């Protein structure tokens, strides 16, 4: 999943990185095909070199030391709203076929939730304003649902030109990367593009809460190179982030 996420970062892009796996994806991309990518962190940090050690949060001291800019959240969010951010990463507890994400609460009543989740953080802003949104999720039928209980981070809404209709200036999910495969969005709906080595279209259909659409060109996801695996192992040697089945 990390290796695939890294591939989504293009060289020279300005990327809202976020935490957990995206952080490692950024490290991998920087050290392989995207040496000129720039990482933006919503607490106010811009780096063009990855931090020297494993981060647990974007605010860890090693992520600030050696940054080129350390400023305010509003400055980074301003760049995002202006359209100066090429891509952003987020995950969520639930995603639907249109890439709408729920990180707020499970249950039909927001004020009396079945499961209270942490909330948006900057996720809803990245989903609203980045040119391209890369969604990362553990693949689970309870997570890839036909519809989500609460749209925290807007994806393609109900599909088609929904984003323009509600007033969003650009963007939307371009890819959904799960522990089993990769979906691309076509007219605002997720279409299975590849299945990871060891997975299959059938297994993914089984584990997906919506009626699966499969690209005619569906294929096995390219396995990560030895180089990429080595970078991941070096950065997270104890597998704090990467061993959680992610």
């Amino acid at each position, binding site marked *: 999943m990390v290796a695939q996420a890294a591939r989504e970062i293009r060289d020279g892009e300005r990327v809202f990185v976020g935490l957990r796996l995206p952080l490692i994806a950024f490290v991998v991309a920087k050290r392989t095909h995207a040496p000129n990518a720039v990482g933006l962190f919503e607490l106010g940090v811009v780096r063009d070199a990855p931090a020297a050690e494993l981060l647990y949060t974007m605010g860890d001291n090693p992520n600030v030391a050696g940054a080129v800019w350390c400023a305010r959240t*509003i400055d980074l969010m301003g760049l995002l709203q202006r359209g100066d951010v090429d891509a952003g990463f987020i995950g969520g507890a639930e995603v639907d076929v249109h890439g709408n994400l729920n990180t707020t609460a499970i249950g039909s009543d927001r004020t009396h939730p079945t499961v209270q989740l942490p909330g948006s953080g900057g996720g809803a802003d990245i989903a609203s304003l980045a040119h391209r949104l890369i969604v990362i999720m553990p693949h689970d039928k309870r997570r890839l649902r036909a519809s989500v209980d609460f749209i925290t981070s807007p994806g393609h809404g109900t599909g088609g030109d929904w984003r323009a209709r509600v007033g969003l200036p650009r963007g939307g999910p371009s890819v959904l990367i799960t522990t089993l495969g990769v979906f691309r969005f076509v007219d605002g709906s997720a279409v299975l593009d590849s299945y990871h080595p060891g997975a299959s279209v059938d297994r993914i259909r089984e584990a997906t809460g919506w009626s699966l659409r499969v690209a005619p060109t569906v294929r096995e996801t390219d396995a990560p190179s030895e180089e990429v695996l080595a970078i991941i192992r070096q950065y997270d040697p104890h597998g704090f982030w990467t061993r959680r089945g992610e």
Partner: protein
Amino acid sequence: MTSKVVSLREAVARHVPDGASIALGCALEPAIPFAFAHELIRQRRMGLELIGPISDIAFDQLIGAGCVARVSAAWVGNVSAGLAHAYRRAMEQGVPRRIEVRDHSNFSIAQALLAGALGAPYLPTRTLLGSDIPRANGTFREATDPFSGERVLLIPAITPDVAVIAVQRADEDGNAHLWGPWGVTQEAALAAKSVLVLADEIVERAVIASDPNRTIVPGTKVTAVVRQPGACHPSPLQGRYRRDHEFFHEYHNATRSLAGFEAWIAEWVTGVADRDAYLRKLGARWEALRESGKPAFEVRF
């Protein structure tokens, strides 16, 4: 100028009444004034409104301790460990009491505080259009941008009663230097009616005035200054001490049950007299987190 320096106990006793709205944890993951949150719990403040972007587990602790009536935040959880159990119990079961939540995103809370800092009634934005957050929050309004005819969301100003900020150094009048990420700290301080500064060290005015660009808030906005080394543990303070990741994970595991939460508070909050006692209890673990960082390259004014 008369010195504004008081003890942490006095700062809470004098300047934070029950029902106050408090901006806290405004630098996001770093520089969270946990010492202040714990003193609120020890003094049994009730009916507070908590305002902030992420807060890590500070909000969870205050919610679990029953101090909170409302949360206006973008995220309430445990950044490196997962969900916030006390927040879950409050929202899912009303334990220890029901709380009201005003959902935000990091950008919407930043804009609300920036509007407060500017003295503007609101800021117009394109974020969150199409999200369910505006409906859940209830204080935003959709409108039409009269220049372009496009839809915008208006985020009304938030002006907290109190902003509590942790910094590396301040003078006795509250002129405060913070380095590392600012998050929404400056907006919160300028928007607030009163600012309480927790300084890792109190320094001479000349130190502050040697580098006025480093000042995050001028003393003229500050009500009280507390000298409190280690005020942010387990969160980090740039150039002073690192984040105690394990402490967050231990809290996560210990507070899954209500009884576990209560035991944790009894051990780490109500069971210690003050932050100095808390740091002594951490002992060698605390010493191991301290670091001195690398010097910034010289500038001259």
